[in-house]
């Protein structure tokens, strides 16, 4: 059963306690967002998720989006929910005040994102894409375009999309064919077909602003000949109201495994008027601004679904009575004990819990870096924060979505046969979570990004932003004491990571396929070490709280127990990953292609 209630206490822990000395320092521009204020935001977001978004999650999945005569209708209740969402100011949370946004730190808005992803992943996609489009426009478009489009995107009156994929090219965008022809007035005419366009067409907003990758007539071949264009569904008039239709049409919507309440459209642009965003032939750079922001958000989707799945599983594990505990009867009054007494059910629940809290801790760290990158007054800090987000973006995207997907399937498993039945609500999580591992760059591509572009950049400088804090933490906390087993475990895993990093850098130079073969394992290894580091810090904080006395003993006690489970039952995977990486590409590439 879908029972989502936002884990506010853990969110506040991540926001206000865990990362206070992460080296990114206080950020003067964000000081007005005091814990009191952000608490209120989180409380309200939790209420909205619980009362407005969660109730239409399963119904939306059952009903799906409908396509008729070029018009897409979202499921019952979505239009009203979106109206409330926009009116409540949720679309403008993290946007720049210059365009009507509230300028809330990413550290807060990412938590709000997590809540909406938990409550209703399909719904979250609509405003999520608008935000990504706004980021790209803000970063690269002309002042005129910004003035014309940003306020309405930020307010949620209009929504946005990103149109990359074509039927013959997804990962390899160099092959794309949509073309843009310059006009005398400085605009362009865009013609072509795009597929898999989330929120390409729907009935939530009066206008939809498409960011479209296309080729100019004289563009070089490949990815160096791609430009980015802003193409509205309706051309706005000078007063900002909706003008004539712009030759943008939805040809069909996809029938998908999950995420059914999100419209995934085939979009046709027929001589549609558009404007260049950024420089000619530099579209990939502009698109990547949006893509990088989106990739972190997709990671949050994985976490969101994982959390919802965990809560559903806990509900059922306490409710469902089957068998008796191996250590003796626990529910003498009932016909059987709740299944939560069984070690294997515990294994699943603790795994999900450890994943979720670990991912949330990493997300909090990365979000703080996003804030520091944008707002810190110290250029050295901005640089370090930018390095850190560059490094961690593929990790957040791939690790969180892999683990979210795993959690969703563990939840189905906890439900047993009922989990396989639609009415239970948990199989929806498994279907919804699946796409996050694929879109915005498959997780394999994320891993390649990490080993191909991030490890070697500036002779490993991005790594410094992560490796140095971990190394320093291990040095500072070494020695006898209650933390010793954990620090020893962290040091071992970190050593495996260091050695793997050096190995990949060295082998990859001579043979890029070696780096490719190690990529996914390496991403997981780095992710687990990041999680271990966060858990060690959390344990230290919790330990001190318990030592000096706290009214929230249960919370901190649980934190340490979850951390200990992670260290004993999940972190040892790093040893296996190390061996896998060390083995190299040989056995992976040995089988002759014809033998497949």
């Amino acid at each position, binding site marked *: 059963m879908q029972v989502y209630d936002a884990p506010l206490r853990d969110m506040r822990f991540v926001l206000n306690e865990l990362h206070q000395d992460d080296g990114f320092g206080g950020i003067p521009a964000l000081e007005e967002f005091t814990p009191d204020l952000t608490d209120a935001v989180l409380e309200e977001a939790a209420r909205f998720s619980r009362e407005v978004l969660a109730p239409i999650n399963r119904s939306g999945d059952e009903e799906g989006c409908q396509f008729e005569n070029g018009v897409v209708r979202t499921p019952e209740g979505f239009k009203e929910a979106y109206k409330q969402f926009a009116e409540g100011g949720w679309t403008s949370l993290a946007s720049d005040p210059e365009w009507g946004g509230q300028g809330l730190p990413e550290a807060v808005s990412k938590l709000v994102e997590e809540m909406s992803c938990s409550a209703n992943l399909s719904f979250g996609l609509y405003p999520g894409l608008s935000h990504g489009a706004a980021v790209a426009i803000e970063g690269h478009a002309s002042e005129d375009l910004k003035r014309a489009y940003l306020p309405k995107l930020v307010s949620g009156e209009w929504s946005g999309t990103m149109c990359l994929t074509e039927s013959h090219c997804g990962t390899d965008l160099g092959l794309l064919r949509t073309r843009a022809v310059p006009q005398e007035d400085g605009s362009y005419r865009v013609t072509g077909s795009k597929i898999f366009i989330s929120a390409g067409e729907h009935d939530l907003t009066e206008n939809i602003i498409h960011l479209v990758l296309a080729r100019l007539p004289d563009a*070089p071949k490949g990815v160096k000949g791609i430009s980015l264009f802003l193409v509205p569904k309706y051309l706005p008039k000078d007063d900002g109201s909706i003008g004539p239709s712009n030759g943008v049409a939805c040809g069909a919507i996809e029938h998908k495994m999950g995420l059914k309440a999100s419209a995934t459209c085939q979009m046709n642009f027929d001589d549609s008027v558009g404007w260049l965003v950024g420089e000619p032939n530099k579209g990939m750079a502009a698109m990547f601004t949006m893509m990088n922001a989106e990739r972190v958000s997709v990671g949050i989707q994985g976490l969101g679904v994982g959390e919802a799945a965990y809560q559903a599983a806990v509900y059922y594990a306490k409710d469902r009575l089957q068998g008796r505990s191996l250590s003796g009867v626990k529910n003498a009054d009932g016909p059987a004990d709740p299944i939560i007494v069984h070690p294997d059910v515990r294994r699943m629940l603790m795994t999900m819990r450890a994943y979720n809290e670990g991912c949330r801790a990493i997300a909090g760290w990365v979000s703080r870096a996003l804030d520091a990158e944008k707002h810190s007054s110290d250029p050295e800090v901005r640089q370090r924060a930018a390095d850190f987000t560059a490094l961690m973006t593929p990790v957040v995207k791939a690790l969180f979505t892999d683990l979210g997907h795993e959690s969703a399937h563990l939840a189905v498993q906890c439900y047993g046969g009922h989990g396989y039945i639609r009415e239970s609500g948990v199989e929806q999580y498994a279907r919804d979570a699946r796409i996050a591992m694929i879109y915005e760059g498959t997780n394999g591509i994320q891993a390649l990004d990490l080993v191909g572009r991030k490890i070697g950049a500036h002779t490993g400088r991005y790594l410094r932003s992560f490796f140095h804090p971990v190394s320093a933490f291990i040095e500072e906390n070494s020695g006898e004491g209650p933390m010793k087993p954990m620090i020893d475990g962290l040091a071992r895993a970190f050593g495996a990571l260091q050695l793997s990093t050096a190995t990949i850098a060295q082998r990859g130079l001579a043979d890029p396929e070696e780096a490719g073969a190690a990529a996914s394992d390496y991403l997981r290894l780095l992710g687990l070490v990041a999680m271990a580091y966060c858990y060690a810090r959390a344990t230290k904080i919790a330990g001190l709280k318990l030592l000096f006395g706290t009214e929230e003993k249960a919370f901190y006690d649980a934190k340490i127990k979850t951390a200990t489970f992670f260290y004993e039952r999940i972190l040892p995977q790093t040893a296996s990953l190390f061996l896998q990486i060390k083995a190299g590409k040989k056995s992976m590439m040995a089988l002759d292609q014809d033998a497949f």
Partner: protein
Amino acid sequence: MSDPIKKVCVIGAGTMGAGIAAQVANAGIPVLLLDIVRDPADRNAVAAGAVAKMLKTEPAPFMSKAAAKLVEVGNIEDDLARVAECDWIVEAIVERLDLKQQLYTKLEAVRRPGTAVSSNTSTIPLDHLTEGRSEAFARDFLITHFFNPPRYMRLLEIVSGPASDAALVARVSDFADRTLGKTIVVAKDTPGFIANRVGTFWIQAALNAAFELGLTVEEADAIAGKPMGVPKTGVFGLVDLVGIDLMPHLQKSLTETLPKDDPYQAISTIPPLIGTMIADGYTGRKGKGGFYRLNREAGKRKEAIDLTTGAYRPVITPQSLPGAAAKGDLGALLAVPGTTGAYAWAILGQTLSYAAGLVPEAADDIVSIDTAMKLGYNWNFGPFELIDKIGAATLAKRLADEGKPVPAILTLAGERSFYRVENGVRQHLGLDGDYHDVVRPEGVLLLADIKLISKPLVKTASAALWDIGDGVAALEFTGKMNALDGEVMALIGKAIPIVTEKFKALVVYNEGKSFSAGANLGLALFALNIAAWGEIEKLVAGGQEAYKALKYAPFPVVSAPFGMALGGGCEILLNSDAVQAHAESYIGLVECGVGLIPGWGGCGEMLDRWRSNPAMPKGPMPAVAKVFETVSTATVSKSAAEAKELGFLRPSDGITMNRDRLLADAKAKALALAEGYQPPEPPVFRLPGASGRVALEMAVKGFQARGLATDYDGVVSGFLADVLTGGEADLVDTVTEADLLALERKGFAKLVRDGRTQARIEAILETGKPLRN
């Protein structure tokens, strides 16, 4: 070889004459530099002015201040008779036959018979120069054609006439080779000799083709640069460098003197744009700009000229060439479709067949032509080596297919290559159709030749050990840029027992672009970015151990640097028993520049040699201060001679002028030391400790107050001061070599963890320029 040359007279103090005089002085030979009298009140002003100007020129024509003192200036009116003091007279006056002949007439009257007279002409045939001269003069006369700048360009073309005395020509050649360090190419008395004739043709062909095919200068240079193994400036960049206004001069002198049917005549038109550029003062880097310019008004924007409109526009990076074509596969380059392949063919087809047609007209053999182009124009490969890359038969076929004449030597080669290795000996194709050994001048020993006939005794990923004969082994660095890393140290570890058992001595030598620019900083930075502190400490300690093991090994170690020997590359010299350095050695401990301190024993070795310098005042502080000054400022010597002044070389260390003779000289030095060799005793120091450190820190504060040193410079030099003053020691304590090594390790370990050091290392790796943070 009778009558060695003990004094030289250079007449004509222009760029070439003055530069030649400087190089003679660099070799330690006194030289008389004469020019005309322009100011009756200051009769030597022209020559004296030339010397004064050279003292301020960069790159410096003089290798040391002492060398400059060996140049005596005079004028041809008062001092011409003094040529009788000299054993060789070099004429380097303006390129006018009448003026040269007038001078020779006067010289004939005053010179000692048997004194060699040579002209540095680049355009006038020898038979014109000796016209009307006595038989005795003609016997002593030859052309010695230096390249600009004479100190740095290794090529010397020597042309003798039918009347020239072979023994005298040999004496001058030998002097130019051993003493001046030049590589001699014997050229025939034909216009432009070898290098300028091929070079001018090549430039002209490349410029014309770029105009004809409608390429941008960037596109042209991207093709006619690195992919062809010529300097990456490409042709337009090269012409900017030497001066666009030189083009019409070269063109005129060649068209006037070459036969009418020479292929150069057909291509020797100067494109109108170039005429306009010269007229408007756009003569290249020395003028307002050339094909490229830095637009200072647009914030130092790099711009290039549009060859069609003549207007400047921002530089456009051309599309990169396909992999193999970019990496020097000429076949792949020629096969690139479109203008790229067409341009490559226009240059290579014309230039290589032109060069191939010059044997035997301009040179007796193909080796001379290849050597001239490699050393005179800095090509990585000579024309015949380039033909081998394409294939002589392939080239001949394409020429024939296009109805172009095929040079006889290409036909002679047929399916064969111009060079081959037979039984470990490099051979070239002769005009008789047979292969002949490439003969090295006597006393030249090259590792490249040894490698053809043997395998390394032992090797690792970054170094190898070779048997170079007569009981001497050579340790070669083989890593990228000869960078030093754990693999080099591992090889030292493996080499010591082998050399101990089977050899008398070890030479540290290689034939890369430079001896070594020091530790592999990329590797170090990556290691410290991933917080692999243990690895860094291992690298430092391992290097110390390896270098000290070399120092105390039971055999002598002679290092033979050339080019850059920096950081760890300098420290291996400091730990050697002796050094035989090429004159062009740029030596220094530059660690402070990247926020580090010498970590492989450089501090102690420098202290040891400065304190034993008899010129140093008494007490522990002068040597400490001297080393601190040199090392904290990351001073690099601009020559081997200057390295002696800075203490990187000992007074007893040798200097070799000719790069090709370096290994043989180092080997001889090693063998000389091997007789009754005893390893050195470890030094023991008395160092000033804290009080000395305070004095050094005060000095740094002074620099900081004057804005000459940054805050972080202060931090870095503080660690250096700590090592040099002996850390916690004071004067009553003795400080051992091991103590100093421990202090080096301690300082190094602290510095690598500082973000500012990390930023400095990153900057030097990414920009090549030091970061002053």
